[in-house]
Each structure stands twice: as structure tokens, then as C-alpha cells.
């Protein structure tokens, strides 16, 4: 962790090396056989940093002697980490209960005679913290920050607390994470600072679909109200798929253009048929088929298939029988289906994942590996102090959390267990 306090110092050290990895920016700098034209880690060490205050200088080659052909030992920063259950306790304590550990807690680990004993004591303390009332508060705060919303009901504005509180309750109660999109009751609990209090949302959907997890949460729809329901699409995309639009990508994207007479500025990469979205070739009042500059359809191919599902909620998040979002055109007309899709085109979550209503949308999301992986990614990033996976560009390699995701699925989507697994993970206890 502390190594990240000196990144600027180190950053300069890497300037030389940076230019040597332009063909593969993610390649380890220490690779013995560097890219063509780049020095390997053997060879002359340069002038070195002679100044006492300056210290390292830019490079400080890892060499033996002054220019011999030393075969480097393949290592990464992972090998430099030090196992520390007391350091892990400090970090975990702040994240799980919002305070540093007590002196007694620290010493209860420190006094253990072996690493195995320290590990067992640390695990015991993690369990204790995850049962603490303060963990509930941290969970509520975690989901408020994740959903970027909070606030009590006021006037026509609904509570913006119920959705994050529901998510926190699901985790604390060890319920399936998928309930977040599928539950039909109890989706509007409250939190009094100590306990979760069960609560149902007022019916907020068509007959038979009055409550569909957070997909019908009035707070979410009020917080993310906007033209053509695109903000809501963005919310669900970024929060639960962990990346910005486009939500889908066609690996076999073809160029030239799929539409006659359209000089594409770039390749159309969305898997949906270009001709299914609204634009100048059909009744669409906004041209999502524009291809003169940027290919709007690369994102809107997917966005437009999802947005109508979220468009019946007005600016106060209340369900209306008809579409209740506007178009950003003169007069601000209310949107109609052909503003998103051509007549007859069905809504969907993704290609081959049709969703005629919010229930089917919830089912599609919970069957999407991307969504399940995202849930774990967010917890991992929180534990490892990475920041938000989207807004802080803290994308995570699936390989890093593969074992946690697998356990998450096998556990019936118990995200509480994933939290525990992450805070006990080998990577979490190394610094």
C-alpha cells in the first residue's frame, strides 16, 4: 500500500523504460528479452544518481556491477509484497466497520506465535467485523456511493435511499445478489443506523409487474431521469456491467457499412442490425443512424433496445402507462417507440437476450456473466482501494478475481461470502 504513496517518485524512474514498451504497454518492464530496440535489464547501469537528496535518478538499472551480462531473475512486484495480517486488519477494519482496529484487536494478532495462528485470528476478526452493526452502515454507504444516490423522500421526490439500502440488506442478510433484480417484495427497506427495517415499495409497474427488484425503484428512476431514458440505461450499464457504453461489441464487425448510401466514418461494431435503430431511414426523430462523423449506432444499437423498458417512469420515478420521458427537440415532445427502434422491433437486454418487460430484463441481467463478475469486481476494488471501476477507470482483469467469481456463483450469488473471501484473500493480506 505504501508503495503507492511514492508513485511520483517512481514515475520518473520509469520514463526511460516507458518508451521501450510502446508496442506492449502492459509488458513487464523486467522482462529479460525486451522489445526490439529496448535495453534489457542487463548491461550498463548508466550514470546513477549521485546526489544525496536526489536519490535514485531516472533508472537505476538493476544490474550487477558495471555492465556485465547478468541474467535477470524474473520477478514482479507481487514477489516484493510482504505478508502482514496486522496491516490487513487495519485496512479491513476501516473498510468493514469504518474505523481503525482497537489496540486489543491489533495485539491479538501480533501476539500469535505463527503466521497460521495470525491468519486464523485475522479471519476471526473479519467475521466479527462483518457481524458488527457498523458493517451495515458501511454497506449502506458503499451502495450509496456505487449508485451515486441518497436522500430522504421530499415532496414529489421519492426516497433515494431505498435502492442502496435494499442492496446493503441483501448483502448483510446473505441473500442472493440476484434478488436485486428479481425480488417482488421487500425492495424498499429502511435503515435506522442500527437495523434494517423491511419495507415494500408502492406498486410501481404495470399489473403483474408492480415490483421487480430495483428495476422499479422510484428513487433510481427519479435520480436518473433524463431524455429518452438514456441516463437510466447508463446507470444500469455502468453500475452493473462495470463499463461504459457500448454495452455490446461485435468481434466480427464489418466494414464497409451495413447501410446503403452511408459513408461510414468508422466500422460499425455493434452486433444489432444497423437498420433496426431509429434514424434518417425510418421514423426516428433523432438520427441514431448518423454515420458522417462518429457511428452513433455503436452504442445506441444496444442502448435503444433497452431504453424503452425504462421509459415509463416520470421525473419523480413514478410508473406511467405510457412513455414518460422527453425528446431533446424543440417543444420537448414525449418520446414514442419509433424514437428508439423501428416499428415492430422488440426490446432486449442484449442480442439473443430478449426482454419484453422489466421482469425479463431482470432475468436477462442475472443470467449475464458480465453482471455477476461486475458485482465481485466492485467489492474487490473497494477492498483493494482501487476506486470505482468505471468513474475511476479501475478496470480489473477477470483473471484476478476468477476464483472469487466462481465461488460467488457456486454459493448461489451470496455476495456476503464474496466480501469475506476477498478480505481473507492472499492478495489482500500482502502489502
Amino acid at each position, binding site marked *: *500500500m505504501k*508503495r503507492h*504513496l511514492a*508513485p*511520483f517518485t*517512481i*514515475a*520518473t*524512474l520509469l520514463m526511460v*523504460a516507458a518508451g521501450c*514498451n510502446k508496442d506492449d*504497454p502492459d509488458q513487464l*518492464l*523486467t522482462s529479460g528479452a525486451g522489445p526490439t530496440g*529496448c*535495453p534489457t535489464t542487463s548491461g*550498463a*547501469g548508466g550514470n*546513477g544518481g549521485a*546526489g*544525496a*537528496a*536526489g*536519490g*535514485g*535518478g*531516472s*533508472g*537505476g*538499472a*538493476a*544490474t*550487477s*556491477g558495471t*555492465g556485465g551480462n*547478468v541474467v*535477470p531473475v524474473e520477478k*514482479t*512486484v*507481487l514477489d516484493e509484497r510482504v505478508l502482514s495480517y496486522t496491516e490487513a486488519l487495519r*485496512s479491513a477494519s*476501516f473498510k468493514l466497520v469504518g474505523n481503525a482496529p482497537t*489496540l486489543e484487536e*491489533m*495485539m491479538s494478532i501480533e501476539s500469535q506465535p505463527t503466521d497460521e495462528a495470525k491468519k486464523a485470528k485475522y479471519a476471526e476478526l473479519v467475521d466479527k467485523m462483518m457481524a458488527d452493526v457498523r458493517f451495515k452502515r458501511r454497506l449502506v454507504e458503499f451502495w*450509496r*456511493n*456505487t449508485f*451515486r*444516490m441518497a436522500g430522504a423522500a421530499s415532496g414529489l421526490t421519492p426516497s433515494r435511499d431505498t435502492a442502496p439500502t435494499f442492496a446493503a440488506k441483501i448483502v448483510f442478510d446473505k441473500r442472493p445478489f440476484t434478488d436485486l433484480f428479481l425480488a417482488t417484495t421487500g425492495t424498499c427497506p429502511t435503515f435506522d443506523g442500527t437495523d434494517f427495517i423491511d419495507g415494500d415499495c408502492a406498486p410501481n409497474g404495470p399489473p403483474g409487474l408492480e415490483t421487480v427488484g430495483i428495476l422499479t425503484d422510484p428513487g433510481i428512476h427519479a*435520480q*436518473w431521469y433524463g431524455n429518452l431514458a438514456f441516463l437510466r440505461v447508463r446507470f444500469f450499464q455502468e453500475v452493473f456491467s462495470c463499463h461504459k457504453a457500448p454495452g455490446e461489441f461485435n468481434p466480427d464487425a464489418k466494414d464497409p457499412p451495413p447501410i446503403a448510401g452511408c459513408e461510414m466514418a468508422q466500422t460499425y461494431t455493434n452486433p444489432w442490425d444497423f437498420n433496426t435503430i431509429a434514424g434518417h431511414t425510418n421514423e426516428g426523430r433523432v438520427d441514431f443512424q448518423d454515420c458522417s462523423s462518429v457511428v452513433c449506432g455503436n452504442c445506441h444499437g444496444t442502448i435503444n433496445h433497452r431504453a424503452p423498458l425504462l421509459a415509463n417512469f416520470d421525473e419523480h420515478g413514478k410508473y406511467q402507462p405510457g412513455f414518460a420521458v422527453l425528446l431533446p427537440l424543440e417543444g420537448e415532445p414525449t418520446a414514442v417507440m419509433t424514437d428508439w427502434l423501428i416499428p415492430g422491433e422488440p426490446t432486449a437486454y442484449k442480442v439473443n437476450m430478449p426482454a419484453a418487460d422489466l421482469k425479463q430484463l431482470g432475468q436477462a441481467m442475472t443470467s449475464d456473466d458480465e453482471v455477476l463478475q461486475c458485482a465481485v469486481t466492485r467489492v474487490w476494488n473497494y477492498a*483493494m*482501494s*482501487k476506486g*470505482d471501476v468505471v*468513474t475511476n477507470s479501475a478496470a480489473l*482483469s477477470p483473471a*484476478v*478475481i476468477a476464483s472469487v467469481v466462481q465461488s460467488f456463483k457456486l454459493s448461489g450469488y451470496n455476495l456476503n461470502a464474496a466480501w469475506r473471501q476477498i478480505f481473507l484473500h492472499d492478495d489482500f493480506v500482502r502489502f
Partner: protein
Amino acid sequence: MNGKRDSMSRESIAHYGRTARLARWAVPGIVFSVAFGFAACTGKSNPVNPNCPTDTGSGGSGGSGGGVTTTTGQGGSTTTSSTTTTSVTSGTAGAGATGNDASGNEDNTFDHFNGPGDPFEILKQHLEEGPPEIRGRLHSCSKIPYSSLGEFLKSRGVNLDATAGAGQPKTAGQIYKEGKDSLGTANYAAREPEAYFHTTAGATKLFDIFVQAAPEIIANIQNVPACQIGGVGKPMFDTTTGECVFESLSCIIGRPAKSQDIKLCNTMLQHAAPGNQADLDLKRRITVAAFLSAAHTCE
């Protein structure tokens, strides 16, 4: 920068954004380094503490190697293995501290990295940390959430409701309560979550709080339950020897203090002018604040 935003191109805005992100990531370490330098290494060369720079102005020109290890000598060290980083050098990188205190010089605290920068710094950051499979497994450095900071201060003996008398500097509690925005609290109405990382202003505010909290912590740490074992606490400094007390130092940094921590703590106190109680009190305050800053810049 914000004033120019309207006239900036999209690329420029992105460029500035990346630079700001780097700054958020790097600044706490820089600010702390400066603060710590003031606390422990004030003045000229320090023959007692090898952690203090002997002087400024003679930084090395830097080697031209690939891998990175700590190196202060010539021609690369005798290290036989290379890694992707993390050995931390003393002083600043590259040319070293220059002794130039002019505003904007990147070697001093006036440079906050809020200005233009190279967007490829982000790439360099990733280069430093290695491939995604590696950097994803490393702890990063996020700030302590606002509410957690308050809970921590209270549990270590700080009265967040205390107010300063007329003409006196604000208490830690006042700075904490009035510093919400700087400390990055959420603005949900604008769909903004609490910030994960420090800004320059936030890190500075945090250190201000710690400096003002230190006297309260020194006075109360013996009596707070979080710092007691079996209901018995210890003072911050030994009443007989005046030296730093392991248990209390551990309690403020959140992990058991190491021998180096104790040694550094005592070294800082030794800078007090002999027989000058006021100076000793000041050094004790700075010592506690410096340890708090060092420990809690990252969550």
C-alpha cells in the same frame, strides 16, 4: 484550468482529466513527504537521522537502465534481480531536490500538479504497476471516508464538538466539520459519490486536522477504550523517559508499531531544544501529527 475549460478541446479536457487523476494519486505521497520532511528533517544535514537528506541541490542525473531498484550510487546498484518497481528512493526522483523554492517547481510543495501534464503519465503509472493481472492484485491508496475519519478521531480522544476560543486556531473538530467539501464528501444531488482519492486540498486539510488533533490525542489517549488493553491505557509519551510508548503509537497508526517506528518517533523528539518544554511540546505534537499523516493518508 476550469476557467479555460469552455475554450478547451475535448482532447485537452481529457488530457487535463488524466493529469488530475495522476495528481490525485500521487499528491498525497508528495504532500506527506514534504510534511514529514518538515517534521523530522527540518534544517540542514542531520547526522543523527540517516533518513534526512544531507542537503539539496545535488541530485544525480539518473541512470539509464530498465528495471528499478533503489540506487544512490553510480552506475547502478549491485542488485542482481530486477522488478517492476516499488523500491522507494529518498528525495524526489530524477534530478533530485534542487533547492529551488520557486512556485511551480516540481521539487517543492508549491507544485500541485493541477496544471497541464503529459497524458502518458497514466500509461507510465500502468507500466510501473505491470500488466492488469498484476496491478489488480496490488493495494492502491484511497482516502479514508469522511465518516470513518470522524469515527477514528473520536475513538482516539478528539472532541469533534470542541470549538476554539476567540483568536485561537480552529480545533480539529471545527476543521473537520467545515472541511467536508475539501475532504471529498458525496454530492448525491449532482450524482457524485464520495471521492475515493485525495485532492491536494483534501490531503492538506487532512494534515491540518491531524496537527490540531495531536494535542487532544496526546492528552486523552490513555483514557480512550480503543487504546486500552484490559481497561488500562498508556500515555503517548513515557512519563519518566519521555520516549514514545509502543502501545499508544500503535493505537494511532492502526497497527503494531515496529522498532523503526519507535526509533523514528524518538528521533523526532530529540530535536527539541534541551530544557525547553514549549519546544518539546511542539515536537511531540508534530511527531504525532506526522505519524497520523503517514499512517492514514491511505485507507
